[in-house]
């Protein structure tokens, strides 16, 4: 408005270059951290020969993929990644919504802030610390569960780190312990946004607490729940590497229930030294993930375009 007397086109040209200069460090980082590795997916179609340098790989077409999908690992890691994520989405969301409703109920209490901090604390520590916590409970020599709880009931000690059947439950509990407090923040914010007048009106009509929850709170936060769930579904091929690698102590006996795509990629690379296979698994994860995230975003946009990623 103020610049109406200037040539608007010239001004735009003049102002774009300094603004562009600001973006250069960030763009360079994206180039290095994201785009060069994207181009690097070609190694999934090569057999790596490090003696010949980075570009010394021999083209092998789809051999890496053919080999990967012939192994039992491909099925196990895909199954585990998807099933764990489904479990996490269902139980994580349910627990977070319940905690959010209960926290909102007592939010006027002076101690509420302390409660909330305590519930969030597990989500701000590293997975390494979590692995120590789990170790304190489960290790066979001195773990609390074997030494105190099972002994008290006369149950023989269980070698937790070598029996894969227990780990779906263990990992679920660890996941919930670490993440529910954090997830509940989102739903508390959503509940806080509900018009208090609706509750007043419901009270006058004689609706009790439980009815208010089912007929007001839950329907009102439904859009947030749906969006959070869809976004999680878009990331269903990804897993928290620390949860599946460090918490089970990288124990080979547990791979059947702890191997996910991310841990497999790490093991293929660092333990088997098979870059081609690691890249192939990574590309498989990225491509399926890409399709899923586009689908999830498409659905979110249909429901509520404000919350769509793009």
């Amino acid at each position, binding site marked *: 408005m*103020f*610049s109406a007397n200037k040539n608007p086109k010239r001004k735009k*040209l003049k*102002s*774009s270059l300094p603004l*562009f*200069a*600001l*973006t250069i*460090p*960030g763009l360079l980082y*994206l180039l*290095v*951290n*994201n*785009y*060069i*590795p*994207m*181009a*690097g997916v070609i*190694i999934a179609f090569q057999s790596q020969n490090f003696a010949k340098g980075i570009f010394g790989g021999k083209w092998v077409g789809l051999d890496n993929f053919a080999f990967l999908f012939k192994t039992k690992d491909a099925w196990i890691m895909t199954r585990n990644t998807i099933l764990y994520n489904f479990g996490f989405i269902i139980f994580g969301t349910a627990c977070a919504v319940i905690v959010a*409703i*209960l926290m909102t109920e*007592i939010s006027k*209490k002076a101690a509420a802030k302390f409660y*909330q901090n305590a519930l969030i*604390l*597990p989500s*701000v520590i*590293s997975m*390494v*610390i979590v692995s*120590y*916590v789990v*170790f304190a*409970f489960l290790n066979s*020599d*001195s*773990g609390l569960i074997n030494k*105190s709880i099972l002994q008290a009931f006369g149950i023989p000690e269980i070698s937790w780190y070598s029996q894969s059947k227990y780990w779906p439950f263990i990992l679920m509990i660890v996941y919930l312990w670490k993440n529910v*407090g*954090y997830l509940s*923040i*989102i739903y508390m*914010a959503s509940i806080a946004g509900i018009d208090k007048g609706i509750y007043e009106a419901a009270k006058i009509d004689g609706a009790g*607490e*439980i009815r208010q929850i089912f007929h007001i709170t839950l329907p009102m936060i439904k859009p947030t729940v749906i969006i*959070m769930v869809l*976004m999680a579904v878009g990331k269903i091929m990804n897993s928290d*590497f620390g949860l599946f690698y460090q918490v089970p102590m990288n124990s080979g006996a547990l791979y059947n229930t702890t191997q996910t795509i991310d841990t497999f*990629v*790490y093991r*293929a690379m660092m333990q088997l030294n098979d870059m081609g296979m*690691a890249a192939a698994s*990574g*590309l498989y994860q*990225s491509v399926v993930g890409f399709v899923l995230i586009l689908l999830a975003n498409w659905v979110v946009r249909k429901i509520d375009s404000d919350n769509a*990623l*793009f």
Partner: protein
Amino acid sequence: MTELKTRGEKAFYIFAQIVIILLVLISIAPFLLIFISSFTKESDLVANGYSFFPKELSLDAYYYMASQYKTIIRAYGVSIFVTIVGTFSSVLITSMLAYPLSRKDFKYRTIISFLVLFTMLFSGGIAPAYIMWTRIFHIKNTILALIMPNYLMNAFNVFLMANYYRNNIPVSLIESAQIDGAGELRIFFKIILPLSIPSVATIGIFTGLAYWNDWINGLYYITEPKLFGIQNLLVRIMENIQFLKSGSAASAIGTVAVQLPSTSIRMALAVMGIVPVVIIFPFIQKYFIKGVVVGAVKG
């Protein structure tokens, strides 16, 4: 406040309180177990395992750690350095990229936004990234390996910042600065950046936590113990003590029996990892919660 509660409301209020207190206990109890175990006498731990109610207390684990102070202080130093340098660089380049994207008159806005967005949708995976970082940039066993890969900037924070600028910086402010003859760079560094401190604090806290808690870059790129941060030290010591133990059990040869309070040391080390976060958390929790909410709503 009208406190005319029905009986049902009261009952629900009490129920909510009981459940939340139980959950708070579940949240905190594992930390307490670690804390108490780190002060438990080694012989008690060997006999009875980790327990909330130890029979004998002892400072042995901490004495042992004090004797290893060089390693521990060094690890803290690495972690603190990486967190500060990484977070500072991250918020700077994130804001610098985000601000032009928030300007409607920026010519390359669409294309750059797309380039940023696309990194959220597709990734080349860690194998090509590993080869690039180690064979082109040679960051293995350098401090850069703990700063550069993954955490320096992410698309999500860029959009969060751009949104903040769009909604909180009036266009008239930029225009009047331009009339006063200020260039774009000057406007950004002298006016915009100081005004965006709340948002910078929010993304800074998440980035800082990510750096402080990171051990995966160390797992991939660091084999030199001198460059272990506190998290990688924890990873290594978990493996190392196991190694020590199995080694001494296997060899019945009466070598020097080093009395290593390994069971309690583990927990004392975990305490060292937890304490800084617990100390800082009350100061950052406001921004943390705000960040979670903003991130969830706009993401």
